[in-house]
């Protein structure tokens, strides 16, 4: 197997995730797209760890832990937005627009 096929799969998943972050306006769906991006990065880390030792796998574990923390806090924020505004439409949150 080539290394490149894993890297290209990760690139496709990453791009699809970026598309989702840009296009989706429901807060939960944006968080799901972020998960796609983080998983794509994990594929890269593990594919490269077959070359340069297990450090890549350790960092993939760290990415999984950080993703879990991010989803916890992110969903709490989405719940709070819902509680205050009765909607999770991210495009309506433009108070900080200059």
């Amino acid at each position, binding site marked *: 197997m080539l*290394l*490149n096929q894993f890297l290209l*799969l990760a690139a496709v998943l990453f791009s699809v995730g970026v598309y*989702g972050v840009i296009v989706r306006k429901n807060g*939960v*769906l944006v968080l799901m797209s972020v998960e796609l991006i983080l998983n794509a990065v994990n594929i890269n880390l*593990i594919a490269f760890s077959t070359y340069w030792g297990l450090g890549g796998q350790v960092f993939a574990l760290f990415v999984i832990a950080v993703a879990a923390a991010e*989803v*916890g806090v992110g969903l709490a924020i989405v719940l709070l937005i*819902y509680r205050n505004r009765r909607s999770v439409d991210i495009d309506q949150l433009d108070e900080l627009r200059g």
Partner: protein
Amino acid sequence: MTGLLAAAETTFDVPGNVAFAVLAVLMVVAAIRVVTTRNIVHAALWLVVVLGGNAVVYLILQAEFLALTQLLVYIGAIIVLFLFGIMLTRAPLGKSGDLDNNQRWIGAAVGVLLLLVIGYAVTRTWGSDRLDFAAYDLPQVSDVAGSTVEIGGSGNGRTQALANEIFGSYLIPFEVVSVLLTGALIGAIVLARRD
């Protein structure tokens, strides 16, 4: 030339490549469904397919511990969190036309551009490198309490080597991750509780 062909023949791995091709198509289709489906619960279920496919990719890359962690953490915990988030924000459970904004073409352009740039860069740099798992086969020597032990003779040597790496060279980042998780836990409780 013949030597090159012979080398290519011995390392060409048909079952692995077929498994990878099927898996890659499935994962890409599922990922596209996650970002395009009009039903928010279906998006979460397609995400399960992508995350499970990720675990199988880790298995193909011979990272068994990571594959099991992926299944436990993502499919066991994060998907459940997402489904709770969908339930608690009273998202529309059926089809809904109100999940995307009107930047669809800009998003598609950015995605395709990003894919072209990353694809060109990785193909140019890593285009012909074969996976030989050489780094996994290095003898892993652990220096516990002054006595040197060689790991890797038994079947689960790679997981032992990974543990050795985490609790050896990466001990301080590992502890920092624990602090991060505690902070995220407290933050989530503070944000989500009603006063």
